[in-house]
């Protein structure tokens, strides 16, 4: 059952609405993967989307970025409807994402992975490229320097020539995030960025997320399973299960929400948690 509260998120933030999703539905044949999903995200927010496996979280990402076609509903990005647009058009409007299983360009160098993000505004055309004209050479130099500086921001500049698939896992994830940011998005979708990381890497990741939000003036929507990351980084959380939103709130509210606990751990755990919190408040 959808949470009764409508789509407002963190009530402190009164910035402009960046992403407005209304009554989003996605059906795969008979399977209703996403049901009446609503969400409003304002500029600068860091929002989490959590839920058990198969809840529909990545499906929502894919719907936003155009990889899946919307069955019904609307997705407005800065007022523009994204429904029906091609993925690359959506990226050009200012939304970038990372993937659950890191999708770098495995045989390309670190530098090239980032340079591809600049392709849409490379500044030269096809014929300039084939002829290696002066114009091409100037613009390409600019592009490359920009990319190298960008790598520097993420401390990857020394690795610029390395082949992406040879990088250690943590650096691959960092590169993927850097690459997404090279596309200069306003909204960044991170799909389980902490997957497969050890605690130290997770801590680094959390710092990185805070850093990029400041540095690049981003709005971030994050899917994550590791509660440490979710609770430590997100300001506002939406919980999904079976394609529907079952709860919204701050990290503290979500942690103690019995509906959420039931979704993740089952009815027994929810009851237990209720008893525990009652005991705690009695003891207090």
């Amino acid at each position, binding site marked *: 059952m959808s949470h009764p509260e409508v789509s407002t998120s963190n009530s402190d933030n009164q910035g402009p609405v960046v992403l407005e999703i209304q009554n989003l539905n996605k059906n*795969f*044949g008979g*399977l209703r*993967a996403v049901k009446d999903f609503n969400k409003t995200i304002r500029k600068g927010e860091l929002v989490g989307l959590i839920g058990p496996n198969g809840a529909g979280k990545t499906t929502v990402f894919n719907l936003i970025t155009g990889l*899946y*076609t919307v069955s019904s509903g609307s997705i407005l990005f800065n007022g523009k409807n994204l429904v029906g647009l091609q993925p690359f058009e959506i990226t050009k409007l200012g939304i970038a994402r990372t993937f659950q299983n890191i999708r770098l360009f495995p045989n390309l160098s670190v530098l090239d992975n980032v340079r591809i993000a600049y392709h849409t505004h490379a500044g030269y055309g096809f014929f300039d490229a084939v002829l290696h004209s002066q114009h091409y050479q100037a613009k390409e130099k600019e592009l490359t320097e920009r990319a190298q500086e960008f790598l520097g921001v993420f401390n990857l500049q020394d690795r610029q020539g390395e082949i992406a698939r040879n990088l250690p896992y943590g650096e691959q994830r960092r590169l993927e995030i850097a690459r997404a940011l090279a596309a200069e998005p306003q909204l960044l979708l991170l799909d389980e960025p902490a997957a497969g990381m050890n605690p130290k890497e997770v801590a680094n990741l959390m710092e990185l997320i805070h850093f990029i939000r400041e540095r690049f003036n981003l709005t971030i929507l994050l899917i994550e399973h590791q509660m440490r990351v979710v609770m430590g980084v997100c300001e506002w959380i939406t919980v999904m299960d079976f394609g529907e939103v079952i709860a919204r709130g701050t990290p503290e509210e979500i942690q103690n929400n019995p509906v959420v606990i039931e979704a993740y751990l089952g009815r027994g755990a929810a009851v237990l948690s209720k008893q525990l919190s009652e005991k705690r408040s009695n003891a207090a």
Partner: protein
Amino acid sequence: MEKSSKISALYERAIRERWIGKGFLALIAVLAVGYIGFNAKESPSLFFQQLINGLQIGFVYALVALGYTMVYGIVRLINFAHGDVFMVGAFISFFAIDRFELHIWPSKVFPAIHPNLSLLIGTLTTILMTMVFCALMAMTIERFAYKPLRTAPRISALITAIGVSFFLEYFGALPFVFTPNFITYKGPFPTTSWYIKGGIYKLESGVAPPDGSVIFSNILIIIVVTSLILLSILQFIVRRTKIGKAMRATAFDKPTARLMGINVDGVISVTFAIGAALAGAGGILYATAYRQVVFLMGIMPGLKAFISAVLGGIGSIPGALVGALILGQAEVLSAGYISTPMRDAVAFTILILVLLVRPTGIFGEPEREKA
């Protein structure tokens, strides 16, 4: 106001429901049907003759198509070498009959036996032996050329399949293996033909059939009967036996099948074997019907069988039969009404149209996004 919004609504529908594309296809279909219909009216007996010829080649294609569809369903490989198995079947049976007279071996061993019974047993033996040989050959190929590449990019397996195909053809062309020449096939059983005109009459040798009659031979009956028997056996295996269940499971989800304790390697081997056996049988039937056997004979029928599988829905067994019958019919009609070389062009045009309109084929599931 109303009129323009009605027009724009219509316009929207035209785009969404792909009217231009469908209109284009409809135009082609109408032209084709019209052309055929016109010719059918001109000469109905020719038309029915085509239908019968189409039936004959259609069933042969079906046998080969099954191998393609089953192998693709299970390992996602388009086995280019499959058509050459068909060729090997034809050659092996030829040598068995020509050199060793395998088709009448009971008469050699039991001289008192009735010749027809001997022929029956002998023919069945020949067919069986050929099928077994082809099956073993395919299993060997799979084991040594395809299996090592199961985890490699698909393209490596595809190119290897092309390599195996070339190798089978030209190795077979070597004089001490088969022969580079054309061979006239001697079928295991004598041919009897009938003609239909007002009734069914036996065709005497040396006597021309009257104009406007439709001719068919016992070969047609044997092909149809044999194919149906083999297809029924296959359907039984796939639907009713444990190994069939294992095959379906492996085709559906290989890693899970492995986890369930299914011997996936064995199942893949068996799939190749069954497909090859059917293709080998198809080779015998084809050679019996069309007489000419040569080392390159498997290429075109192989590709046509593949198109049949795509048309019917790759991975679907009934689809392979239906697709093959349709394609066989289309081929014969084009050969009859346009020209013989054009039948190949028509076959591939059908392929391209199928891929454009409904790539999953007749019995395949309609395209969905991956969940």
